[in-house]
């Protein structure tokens, strides 16, 4: 499957910004089954310094700074992807490892893969483990069923018990509140899943990217109707990272495009940085288009 993605980010400031320094996680990365065929990033006004690199997790970064006064900043990214269909998910679903076995392996790690996976059972900048979170997920797992089946049940539980409601949360809403009110957006569901599964001892990472949405039958797809999306992946030793999308209750195959992954949103914030001057208010608008090509 091939896709074209256009991701346009625009900031408007109430007064001119004299200077800015930004780190963007807007460029896509390659994964096992995803290859970026070409990509182009256009920042306006033209940065005096712009550099592409890779972060600690191997995600593509783009650092830029602008030194001319500007009241509007735009970052326009267009990229082309190819996603291979594999039988990875089928294999994952058949993987027999139980949660108990996984925990035993992590307790006394004997491979570097296990040692490095421990990073993803610890607290991260926006996700703290807790007994309350563990409790919410516990009934999905037992020693009789494979862990992957447990995670699948857990994903289904989140999908059925939580409401998608963009007005109910912000980036700063704590997990306890999300759990309490049982509503949020994909990022909240991903963070909640990270918190619950890590609290049970399962290495879990945050996936950030796009999802192809299809228009209602008979209608044209609207420009900018798509959005950036978030889901999670769990670690299976000697096998790999298996992805789950609790917002849609599916295991991603070829409709999820990955831009970056990390411990949580804070590791892969699309755009972070500081500005000098610019007045007291900023407005941000984002539009995303995913098209099959």
């Amino acid at each position, binding site marked *: 499957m091939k896709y074209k993605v256009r991701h346009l980010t625009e*900031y408007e400031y109430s007064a001119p910004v004299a200077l800015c*320094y930004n780190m963007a996680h807007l460029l896509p990365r390659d994964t096992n089954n995803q290859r970026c065929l070409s990509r182009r990033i256009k920042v306006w006004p033209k940065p005096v310094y712009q550099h592409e690199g890779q972060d600690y997790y191997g995600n593509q970064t783009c650092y830029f700074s602008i030194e001319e006064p500007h009241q509007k900043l735009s970052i326009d990214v267009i990229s082309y992807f190819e996603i291979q269909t594999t039988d990875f998910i089928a294999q994952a679903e058949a993987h027999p490892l139980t949660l108990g076995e996984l925990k035993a392996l992590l307790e006394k790690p004997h491979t570097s893969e296990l040692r490095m996976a421990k990073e993803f059972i610890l607290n991260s900048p926006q996700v703290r483990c807790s007994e309350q979170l563990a409790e919410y997920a516990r009934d999905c797992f037992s020693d009789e069923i494979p862990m992957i089946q447990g995670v699948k049940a857990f994903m289904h539980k989140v999908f059925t018990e939580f409401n998608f409601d963009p007005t109910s949360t912000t980036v700063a809403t704590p997990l306890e509140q999300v759990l309490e009110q049982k509503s949020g957006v994909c990022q909240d569901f991903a963070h909640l899943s990270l918190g619950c599964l890590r609290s049970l001892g399962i290495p879990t990472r945050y996936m950030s990217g796009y999802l192809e949405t299809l228009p209602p039958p008979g209608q044209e797809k609207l420009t900018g109707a798509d959005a950036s999306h978030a889901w999670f992946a769990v670690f299976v030793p000697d096998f790999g990272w298996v992805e789950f999308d609790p917002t849609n209750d599916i295991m991603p195959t070829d409709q999820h495009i990955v831009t970056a992954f990390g411990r949580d949103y804070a590791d892969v914030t699309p755009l972070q940085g500081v500005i000098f001057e610019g007045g007291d208010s900023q407005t941000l608008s984002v539009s995303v288009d995913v098209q099959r090509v």
Partner: protein
Amino acid sequence: MHTDALAPMTPEQASLDFDPASSKHYDEAFDMNGFPRDHWQTIIESFNALGAEGVADRQQRARRILSDDGATYNLTSDPLSPNVWGLDIVPYLIENDSWKALEQGMVQRSKLFDLIMKDLYGEQTLLKEGVIPSEIIFDHPGFLRACHGISVPHAQDILLHASDLVRDERGQYLIVGDRTQAPSGAGYAHENRVVLSRVMPRLFRTSRIKRLSHFFQTLRDTLMRIGKQISDKPRIVLLSEGANSKTYFEQAYLANYLGFPLVQGGDLTVRNGQVWMKSLNGLSPVDVIMRRINDDACDQAELKPNSLLGVPGLLEVARSGKVVIANPIGSGLLETPALMAFLPQISQFLLGEELSIATVKTYWCGTEENRLHVEANLSQLIIKPAMRVNGGDSYYGHTLDQEAKQALLDKIRLAPHRWVAQEYVSGAQLPVWADQGLKKRPSIMRMFTVADKDGFSVMPGGLSRVGSQGNERIVGNNISDTLSKDTWVLATDFESTLPAGMDSSSVQDIALQSNLPSRVIENLFWFGRYMERAEVSLRLMRTFFKQMNGVEPLPKESRDILLKAISLQTGCLPGFVQGDSSMFEEPNDELASLICDGARPGTIKSNLNAMLACGEQVKEMLSADTRIILNDLRAHIHQVDRAYANGLPELPEESLDNLVTSILALSGLNHESMLRGPDWMFQELGRRTERALQTAKLLKSTLTEPLASMQQSLVLESVLLSVEALISFRRRYRNRNRVAYGLDLLMADRTNPRSLIYQTEQLRKYLEELPRNESSELGLSPEKRMIIKSLNDIQLADLEMLAHVDEIDGERSALSDFMTQLTEQLERFTSHISDKYFDHAAGPQQLVPGHGEY
């Protein structure tokens, strides 16, 4: 927020005085039978020979030198009571043989820490192979993932390293802690050496002591060599937290000693992918930053967004290799106590060697076995957070009651991998001079290394510390509870006792040295202004007191005008300006407040405090003599406070005289001893502008209101007296006390260094010498326009007309209008100077994140 508070001492290290029966302490100076060890003999004899009085006298002198040098630690916000650095004058002696072993051990340790740094921020084999349990690093807030993969264009990444050592009861040295991000103490060690060599000159000369200068020379060479990878003429700066830092004295001291400009985060900016210093001459490039701020504070764009100390964009410049930061951002990770538990294995893994100097026994609670051991032996252990970044609480097991112990154990059980326990080590006993004799106190020593061409070199000496009281149970980080000591390494050869020669190739670009950060010149400008404000008010008040207490007290009308003038001059309004008659009859409380109330802006004390605070900000720019005068000034302020403790004293002018004398000494020193560089220039600009402003205000406030002849001449006389012009006036005009003559002397006389015309002419001259920003200004710059206009106004003024009393207003309206306009022009002049030469950038703000992802 402190980069590196010196390590706390354990209770044992600071416990009771020497107990001969106790074998818990190793005794540095005396053997088991109580005789001095060989290498201590000479020094013990010297101190005994000096006698109690002799030693007390030297100790006193040492304290005075430290105070004059401005050697402080943990400066509070009160500029009047600095904590003087504590130094005991009995040095710590180390024999050459013991030293060789320590030196070799430190070189090994620094090499090891450098390899750990490279590995954790690179390949991470230590984690992959399980040498360090990975959760220690992954869960550590000091592991900055944004710094992964940054390399320094040099063999070593860790350029400066320090370790704290204690000696156990068998005399074995043990390392109890390491400093890897911005080790402090090397500058204090050097200052200790300088002071001791001055107060104990003979002893110093006759003992063969290894010199410290090689260490600093190596530091300079190393930074220079690294800088050359970036630029032909590398520029190095020392990045400080500023005057609020605990160790600010040391930062200023090192900047001066090494010849690096002392800058704060706001003095630097990232432009076009490079770091620059904002200076008087515009932006000048920076290639190497020796930093004294914490890892996470370095860059608001990628690290802590609300840091007040950093340089936004710095990390990316380091990543691209266009600047080197010593030590690299992220190196604070290596200070984590948990690392100490694994050092023997790490050393085997990375170096294939055993550690030459052992590390204090440390238990990481992340394993069941260790945790149980810690639970069983809590009373014998110090418990620390395993991932301590900057200090953080330690718990001394034996001080906890049952309840506190249980609470701590519960905390540990919740997240065992976040805790370590260390054994107590009793530091060796060192002799100190206290209560008129040699006493023994437990000690700790910090050693320093710096990267060089072949590896690391060790400072032959160090910063030793002892408890200052004989009886404290726990000494915290509070340095004022401890005394430092100079550390003498006794050489067997003569060579290492010679000072290092200066390698000319490593001297910094002269241009950068004379190119000062904008913040520095701004502080000097204000230093001058506050000084002048204080002086004018002081002189006016002193005159008032003299006139009131004179043979013939001032008549009421003259007195009231002077009191109003005092309120106007200090700006402490309404004061006497709207005072009722009772206030004029009983002016003492208000007058005392105008002198001593430090919290009221405009008073003499608040101006002097502000001046001292500006001085503290630019400590590194002040000469030794200036610091001595400022110390005297502090002492005089305290005297005034005491004299005025119960309101206006009997002779109120007396204690003010000393303040005036100190200020005169400062201006004399500026005039005679300061190079006419930009620092002098801006201080002068501040003084001259302020003097012109104050004089204009004074003339307006005292002479606008006409009085009967006798009263008028008394006011005029007082004004002349306050600006030291009365004698000249009388010589020139005999007894004709006309206001116009007064104006002639105070406004238009070029030969009077306190006249308005004198100030404006000087200002005009200075403007010619200031660097010009290559701007597109047509014709005169606005600040010059303002000065020339003022100069012309003064020259063209018709003095008789100004002195004339307007019949309708009943006052000297022309004089009042003239002075008002002149004051406005001068105020505008200062704002032009400020706009052009000072930095006005507000801090950065964070880009708001969007809702995130749907």
